[in-house]
């Protein structure tokens, strides 16, 4: 462990950011790197706990104390090996993960947590700089072929692991670029696309073949794919957005967040935009939905030069601190102010939208909203809401972005053709830890199976699924798993 008394000597510090007023002028990342000294101090805060709750809190099982120690000792190769043993894409999680590890950090009991996510990001950035990120596929191949459908974080993770096990992997992506949400969902200012492309290159060198513009079930026949491969991994994500079916929904100016964000990502990368431009420039914008995607819409709208931005959330405003019902080390539902919020937006909680109002020409003019009050159970969880009498009002706006999450994967096409069974939430049915669908050879990973979730979960599912596929193909597997495996089963 780095420094036994580090946590007593140093406080948590995050890297500096480009000031909000500056950064909204472009779409570049704006979080700076630590100085060497600061990085060393921040890693020294890790206490190398007897029970590293962080390591447990991380959906990937990142071995945080070990890499913190290696960072403290500036042994970058070791740090990279430790980090990459649990996480194929630290450059993604290091930027956009909500860091449940930090919520679980023991230091967090009575002090600010260790800056784990930043340290993670630094390790991988230094590893790229020092050319430590290298292909991992073995010389001796297994002779097995695997198709991965979807190139989001789950698909990529599955592909990276499977190729490491010596299998021939082809990734099918319906878009023109690989990366899924990483590519077209998350704005550049949070994740510059060179970061994604840099990783795709490594994977290609490792032997992963990417088939772009290939939508299985549409322009690639699903049954043929099954016939030609030894295993299939479904990693198409949860793509059907939750809609707000209230009067006026057909008005112009109401868009799903993802359509809005994808267009902007394409623009930043100089790729032609399909269809009509969706822009916030000069408009009064309302983002409906208080999550991360909503936040991304706020940031993008600001950069496009919206006239005003409001963000509505139907839930009540979360507490600023942990309550006794969300004790350490659980992931607390506390008020979060994102960098996009720093850039400017008015946030409202307990607001329910009743109707979209038009200007008579089919364009959105305003929203009719009402305030709600929530009844909570003894644990502080919402049970039902009541409308606040007399709070009904109109909110003028010309753009609404619906960022209320995703429901389930697209059922038609691929899933229908393969005949995979769906669960009651209309996700692909496959047990966590097993990942096999009802169809022979076909596995499912990520949001497609789990329902919408975090990037870190997607990577985790991709990795765990890969191991199961490897076991399926070879009888046993030496691919890592985040949890302890019976080592005897691994080799016998």
């Amino acid at each position: 462990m780095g420094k036994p008394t580090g946590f007593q000597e140093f406080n948590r510090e995050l890297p500096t950011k480009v000031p909000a007023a500056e950064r909204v002028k472009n779409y570049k990342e704006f979080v700076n790197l630590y100085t060497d000294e600061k990085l060393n101090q921040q890693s020294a805060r890790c206490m190398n706990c007897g029970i590293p709750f962080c390591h447990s809190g991380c959906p990937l099982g990142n071995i945080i104390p070990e890499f913190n120690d290696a960072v403290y000792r500036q042994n970058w190769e070791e740090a990279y090996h430790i980090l990459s043993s649990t996480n194929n894409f630290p450059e993604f999680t290091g930027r956009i993960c909500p860091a449940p590890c930090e919520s679980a950090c023991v230091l967090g009991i009575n002090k600010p947590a260790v800056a784990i996510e930043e340290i993670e990001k630094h390790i991988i950035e230094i590893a790229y700089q020092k050319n430590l990120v290298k292909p991992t596929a073995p010389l001796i191949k297994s002779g097995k072929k695997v198709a991965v459908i979807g190139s989001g974080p789950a698909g990529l993770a599955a592909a990276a692991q499977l190729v490491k096990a010596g299998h021939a992997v082809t990734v099918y992506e319906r878009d023109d670029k690989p990366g899924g949400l990483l590519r077209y969902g998350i704005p550049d200012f949070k994740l510059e696309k060179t970061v994604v492309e840099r990783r795709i290159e490594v994977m290609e060198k490792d032997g992963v073949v990417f088939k772009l513009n290939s939508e299985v079930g549409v322009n690639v026949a699903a049954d043929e794919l099954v016939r030609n491969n030894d295993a299939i991994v479904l990693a198409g994500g949860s793509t059907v957005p939750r809609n707000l079916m209230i009067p006026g929904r057909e008005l112009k100016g109401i868009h799903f967040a993802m359509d809005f964000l994808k267009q902007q990502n394409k623009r930043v990368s100089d790729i032609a935009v399909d269809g009509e431009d969706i822009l916030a420039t000069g408009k009064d914008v309302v983002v409906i939905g208080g999550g991360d995607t909503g936040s991304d819409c706020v940031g993008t709208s600001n950069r496009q030069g919206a006239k005003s931005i409001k963000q509505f959330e139907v839930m009540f405003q979360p507490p600023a601190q942990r309550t006794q019902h969300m004790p350490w080390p659980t992931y607390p539902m506390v008020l979060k102010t994102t960098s996009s919020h720093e850039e400017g937006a008015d946030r409202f909680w307990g607001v329910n939208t009743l109707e979209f109002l038009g200007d008579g020409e089919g364009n959105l003019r305003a929203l009719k909203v009402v305030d709600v009050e929530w009844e909570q159970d003894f644990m502080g969880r919402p049970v039902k809401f009541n409308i606040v009498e007399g709070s009904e009002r109109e909110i003028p706006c010309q753009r609404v972005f619906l960022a209320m999450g995703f429901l389930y994967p697209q059922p038609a096409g691929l899933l229908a053709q393969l005949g995979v069974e769906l669960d009651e939430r209309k996700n692909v049915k496959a047990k966590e830890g097993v990942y096999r669908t009802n169809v022979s050879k076909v596995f499912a990973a990520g949001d497609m199976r789990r329902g919408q979730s975090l990037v870190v979960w997607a990577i985790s599912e991709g990795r765990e699924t890969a191991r199961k596929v490897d076991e399926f193909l070879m009888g046993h597997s030496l691919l890592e798993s985040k949890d302890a495996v019976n080592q005897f089963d691994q080799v016998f």
Partner: protein
Amino acid sequence: MQIGNFVVTPLYKRFTLKMNQTDSNQGLYRPEFEHDSCGTGFITNINGHKSNQIIDDALTMLENMEHRGACGCDPETGDGAGILIQLPHEFLMEECSNLEISLPEPGEYGVGMIFFPKDSAQKKACRIVITNAIEKLGLVKLGYRKLTVDSMAVGETARQAEPDVEQIFIARPHHITNAEDFERKLFILRRYINKTITDTIPGASEYFYFTSLSCKTIVYKGQVTTYQLRKYYSDLTDPRIASGFAMIHSRFSTNTFPSWKLAQPFRLIAHNGEINTLTGNLNWFYAGLKSYASSYFTAEEMEMIMPVIDNNQSDSACLDNIIEILLHSGRSLPHVMMMLVPEAWDGNVHMDPIKKAFYEYHATLMEPWDGPAAITFTDGKLVGALLDRNGLRPLRYVITNDGRVIAASEAGTLAIDESTVVRKGRLQPGKMLLIDTEKGRIITDDEIKKQIASRQPYGRWLENYKINLSELTEPRLAFAQLSEASVFRYQQVFGYSREDIDTIIKPMAVDGKEPVGSMGTDVPLAILSDKPQHLSSYFKQFFAQVTNPPIDPIRERLVMSLATFIGNNGNLLDEDKMHCHCVVLKHPILKNHQLEKLRSIDTGLFHAKTLQTYFVADGMPGSLEKGIARLCRYAEDAVDDGFEVLILSDRAVDSEHAPIPTLLAVSAVHHHLIKKGRRGAVGLVVETGDAWEVHHFACLLAFGATAINPYLALATIETVKNNGSLETGLDIKTLQKNYVKSVNDGLLKIFSKMGISTLQSYHGSQVFEILGLNKTVVDKYFCGAVTRIGGLGLDEIAREALCKHRMGFNTKGADNLLPEGGIYQWKRRGEAHLFNPTTVHLLQHATRSNDYNVYKNYAKVINEQTEKHFTIRGLLDFAHHRESISIDEVEPAENIMKRFATGAMSFGSISHEAHSTMAIAMNRIGGKSNTGEGGEDEMRYEKMANGDSMRSAIKQVASARFGVTSNYLTNADELQIKMAQGAKPGEGGQLPGHKVDDWIAKTRHSTPGVGLISPPPHHDIYSIEDLAQLIFDLKNANRAARINVKLVSKAGVGTIAAGVAKAHADVILIAGYDGGTGASPISSVKHAGLPWELGLTEAHQTLVRNKLRSRVVLQTDGQLKTGRDLAIAALMGAEEWGVATAALVAGGCIMMRKCHLNTCPVGVATQDPELRKLFSGKADHVVNLFKFMAEELREIMAELGFRTINEMVGRVQFLKVKDHLESWKAKKIDLSGILHPVTNTKGMTLYNSEKQDHGMADILDWQLLEAAKPALEDKTPVFASFDVINVNRTIGTLLSNEISKVYGSAGLPDNTINYKFKGSAGQSFGAFATKGISFELEGEANDYVGKGLSGAQLAIYPSAKATFTPEDNIIIGNVALYGATSGEVFIGGMAGERFAVRNSGATTVVEGIGDHGCEYMTGGRALILGKTGRNFAAGMSGGLAWIYNPDNSFAENCNTEMVDLDPLSLQDEEQILTLLRKHVSLTGSKLAQQILANWAEASTQFVKVYPKEYKKVVEKLQYQTIG
């Protein structure tokens, strides 16, 4: 002392006989676990003049040592007593003439004293064997004499096994011309008869026994108390019986099964002690069997005396057997004693080189029979006594001017006219006292040893033939270095984890120290883990507990030795210069270059052979077995081909050949060669990648390896250094040197835990219990080791090895990380832990929100262990034999909670906040919290304003005795003697100076900033009779308190518990190995001790068997976490439970496992004021935990149909093995021993229902108390005098308790109670005597004078009649002033060993002392006016000592590691003068008067012993005051 058939079964027999002949229905009890200890002594007329008085006096001495013996459930049945005398010729002649047997002249006939079986057919058959044997050996039978005995004199239990006692008379034939040859013939006869009866008369050997067969001596003994001996044998009271000397023995054994044979003396010795290394010693004896030949025996005779060492007997009896053979093959008795119990010679620069050469030469021939020992011995002419190198048993002697020498375990066992005393002494460590009764003179230790050491030119032999590695030529060829990639692959193949490298190897290499960890262990047992294990993880280290003391390998380094000899041991029965032609190593760890030299060795006579230890990695059944068989075959061939060294190497592994686990390979070859009688002919050197932590090395050595080259560990160090993952500037060579050093230090620690001093004795000693290998494997490859729950077979062991092998040779992608390990820290992919993120969170959440449902979730995770097993209890289910009842019928939780205790955690290891929170919580629920060993601040004795109390109900008494005063002991409901602690049994501890703040220092009676050491042993408990004495002391100190003895689970803890029950403990705590809150070496946490399930059931079974169970409360602890754990513990026999870790977790501990770093971020285990503020635990949280646990227990009780805990205790039939065990390993376990139900004798309970009789009804203190009434009432000074003898023990302790009750720690004003005593005071004179008491003793005292002194003044000086010089004579025994905190003691004479050990505040004057003076002292003043023994001031961190040193000899006796020797300051002079004057006035010391008279000169002849650390603190304080 171990007894029993399987440890001592002759090795060659073990392979032909069925291994375990013990009754399979015994559960976990094994007779070989039994121990005993005792009192011994002799009295002799120096000139050998025979008299009846000698015998009478000897019997009186024996009777006065009755308290050193013991009796069991039947108070009339003793553990055994006996006497050895010369043949009383006149008496026997007259007796025989009545029987018409005509005895020839003395020396021309021999007498056998025989125990015959009662069964007449058997007896007849025995007689026939005897007659035939006598005839066969050409001797002449004269006849039998049946002894008159009084069967009614002995106890009921003893009577059940009483033999027919007869004497046989055998005449010396003419062709045998001298007594020595005749004695040898009688020896052969006895052995031959014994063997024939054992082999031919079924069942007879259990009873048939020769107590003696000799033409010189005879032994009367039996299972009697000391008082019964005279009554039983009418011979002994016959006025005609006479002898020139008599040797006596009184036995205290842990067993109570009738056994007459086990009484002592044996034929040559009486032994108070314990052979720690018996298994190894016996193995080594048999290891050379093929080479044994002697000119004193014909080949046929040799065959007749084999196997030399009998079956089914005690270690002392084995020792007697080995002495016999060595004696009869031509060595003198003192010579034999020097071989078997050598002094500490290795590294002793002051030893005479001739003597040292003798010891070194003999070390090449045989290893010490190691252990605490006071041995009295005789060959009928020479009478003597000898102490082990450590002096761990007392022996005091008196020489009188009427020509007598009286020696015994205690002084004052025989009343002697003081005016006749010429000398009073005590035997010193390693020294011998010898009287030649024929020549009529006392021979000093120096003289006899010089004489024997000069018999042969041992020094020249060594010079010429001993081989030093450094002198050897360079190797002929050498293995190339492993490449970095190969190192990684080898690490995988041998199962290295990242944790092994980071947590173990790196700190060893960088700091040269074994790493330390905290908070015990909660990972699965090796047999339940689904990670491939290192084979040695199935081996649990033994450790010393109660019956023998552990040693301090650091402070008492001088008795320890790592010297080892590689080569042929030679013929033990012969003396030859070539015996020492072997390679001598200072320690057993070889670096690569040294190994290569050895591999290439060629002295013309001495060669080495390398054998590869692999097996075919095809995974087929039997492959490993084949590999081992091949290896053994090759090894045997190599020995036959004349190689002296075998190197077992696992370097040659590849993808198709896996290494045989080295421990298995070594032990298999070792035992194969023993079986063939060839082991003694070779050294076994191991070249292995399979050893990196100290425990691995210890296992290898204990199972036969002579030396070890850990090439992979060394290569690993090189790799981590090269790749920059070490934060150090040290070079590779230094790092490797550090590593080797820490292995060696670690080995010493492991030996010392077991009380073993030398590697030679440890070598092959097998002092491990195997947990998880099956009997077939153990019987074949680890012969004689203990294994009780079955486990893996050979193919499963192979599977574990192959799992690692396949990881190393997998063809998959580029792995760059080893597995994480996760033993010492929770890791997600690592080993599983019971306390993990989920369970810690649930438990804290449940206790904080007072939510039983959340608790149930927690308990479910801990309890279910369905897919993953951790513990033995995890493999069990409840068995229903009764109708379930309503929970309302179950006794209320309030009752149950009274049975809870928290673990012993000291204030110092945890913060005041955490400590007092535990105490408040326990006081609220009526349970008991424990002070731990750090004392307790008196302010906690007062109730708090809100009615809560921070007073810990249990006051612990640990080896350091921190803060143990009369008042502390008085303020307790229970006094706990910590014999061992689960996390590090057999080890001491250290609190570094920087942690000793003002508060802790005050509580511990020490100096802030000065480090504190806890010694490994209690220096007043080296044996079971010593423990009985301490229990008696504590009972005197607070008779209202229960006395609790804390033991750690290990094989044999049951018999120890029986002994402890017989020593009158009220409560016995069996702690599991896995507990532990403080810092401990991480290898101890994991590898020493056993789960409580084994220890508890063994203890319960053994106590019930011995009818002792109802006398004691059984308590258990060790990772108890849920109500289910409690229920299982209750069913296994525990009626009370200790919970520590879970209680701490409820109080906020998050298992940082950093307690040793003082950086606990939640304020639990830290003294940092800032961090302490972060403590957020509340007593309520802890109360909730216990409430929940009790509630869960009640639910289980209702389900099983129990209304009360008492009903439930020990009902193991309510447990069963789970129906479906998933794990392939768990399926192999056999828990029948644990689940073995014991039925109780009618009228007795399976739980505590009677009180112990502490024997306090007639103690002297009642009289003292009566006389002190005015003082107690209104502080009126009182004066009185009393006569005392050695049975008046613990004088003044009860009186002090009464004072403390009224006046607290302030006590009475000085000199309020003034008593004078005359005579020989028993042990513990003035123990815990408090302020206001002033005792004067004219005469002498035994051990432990002023132990725990709490403010009293003691003065002891010789009888006015005495004519001897006080400063040359011993007037008080060993271990005086142990743990004294205040008061003054003046000794007008010499004291024994370990004077003022752990003194932390008392002032004392003494005129001379033995070895280890002022050891671990932390405060107070010692003025020593005479000689000190060796190792003065070892571990002394505080206080001052002044030594009068006119001849300048002191420096060489002082251990200056922690102290400076300074001249006196003026202030010192003043203090010394004051003390000298007081000494004169209180003791009349002539010596002090002379010094005073001559002060000008004398003052320059004093040396001040000034602890360095203390000096620094004092100087800093002075500086601050001045500044």
